[in-house]
């Protein structure tokens, strides 16, 4: 069975991710210390809250280098959810300019409201339009609804890193992937059947 490390860095909502992983046939392991990372063959970085606090908590707990070793040396598949996806970026702007993990080149900026989509945060169900094939979206058709709740979004510099986009506030990248590093802006753990399919796909990589 896949042991899925779920990183606890005091940025909320771990229990739902953990329960969803369990329901999808994985074995979740909530970890608070980097030395526990070696037990896992999948890593999930969840998170809600501000970019600046999140990066600072990851540094304080020694996760930044430890995660890089697992992901780049041991090639452990990695999934960032919501803020966890945004942290993959080079730079975040929430709470002031802050360097991110820098694993996928890009910036995290505030959603800019449009006349039609004037309400920020973007909260609720919205579509993901698939732009290129990815194992993460196996057996999921383009245009399915997922649950979003966020005010910032990831703008990758390189369009090859974008797997899916969502048509809100002039559109944003809602799924990114570079090799075995994945990020989703929506909450698969709260997106019911279709969200569980994403998690199952991650478990069967």
């Amino acid at each position, binding site marked *: 069975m896949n042991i899925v490390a779920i990183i606890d860095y*005091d*940025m*909320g*909502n*771990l*229990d*739902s991710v953990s*329960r*969803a992983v369990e*329901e999808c046939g994985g074995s979740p392991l909530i970890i608070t210390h980097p030395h526990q990372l070696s037990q896992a063959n999948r890593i999930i970085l969840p998170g*809600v*809250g*501000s970019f600046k*606090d999140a990066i600072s908590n990851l540094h304080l707990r020694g996760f930044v280098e430890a995660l890089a070793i697992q992901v780049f040396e041991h090639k452990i598949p990695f999934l960032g959810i919501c*803020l966890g996806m945004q942290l993959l970026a080079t730079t975040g702007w929430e709470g002031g300019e802050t360097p991110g993990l820098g694993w996928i080149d890009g910036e995290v900026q505030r959603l800019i*409201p449009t006349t*039609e*989509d*004037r*309400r*920020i*945060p*973007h*909260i*609720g*169900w*919205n*579509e993901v339009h698939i732009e290129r094939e990815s194992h993460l979206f196996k057996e999921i058709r383009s245009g399915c*609804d997922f*649950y*979003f*709740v*966020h*005010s910032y979004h990831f703008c990758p510099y390189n369009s090859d890193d974008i797997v899916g986009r969502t*048509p*809100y506030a002039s559109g944003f990248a809602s799924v990114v992937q570079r090799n075995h590093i994945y990020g989703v802006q929506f*909450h698969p*753990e*709260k997106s*019911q*059947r279709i*969200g*569980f399919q994403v998690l199952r796909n991650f478990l069967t990589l």
Partner: protein
Amino acid sequence: MPTKIRIMPTLLYKEVGLVKGVGFDAWRRVGSAMQAIRVYNMREVDELILLDITATRDKRPPDFELVDELADECFMPLTIGGGVRTIEDVRHLLQVGADKIALNTAAIEEPNLITQIANHFGSQCVVVSIDVRCHAQQKYEVFTHAGTIATGRDPASWAQEVQDRGAGEILLTSIERDGTMSGYNNDLTAKVSTTVSIPVIASGGAGNYQHMASVLREGGASAVAAASIFHFTQQTPLEAKRYLHEHGFMVRL
């Protein structure tokens, strides 16, 4: 493209079971919370709101163990409210599986709490719940403590203030309409939704699907909360969405 309209069943929790009242009074038992969550889960509803309506009155913190058990069965977005007073309460609720926290009395008494939560956990998890009574000449007033204490505040200006302080959403309840199934207060909802740019969830009064369509259209709500209609009639969230879809609204089906 706008976000899809959300339909959010509201579960009111009091001591040991689920209840539903009329005008914030005359509570009736309506079954176990766990059972309700399992059913809503199976039916894939958009979101759930679970409010402990006596915690503040009894000066109790939220029942974290109960929320933990319920959240374990809830694979949809879950908003928890009732008795939340400190940032530690929020941290604890998020840890056991809540996605959003509803503040009502505490937001009025300690408005800085809204900002603290938004700064630390993000605006998206702060829902400010505003309970409103309508006086003569459509004059509205915000009430706290489950509708028992008048605050002298106007709902639209309070809504503006909570948005400025970092709230991510407003749950707006008309106390008079609550449980009557006579329709939402569209006028109140419009006053608030045109003032703020964060989403407004209309609550109180849903009796049929037309009521939902009218508060979405005339009240500018982004979502509708409803309880009695789902507890006491054969109407369901899914049918409501089909109705709204046929009437030109974007929904998740």
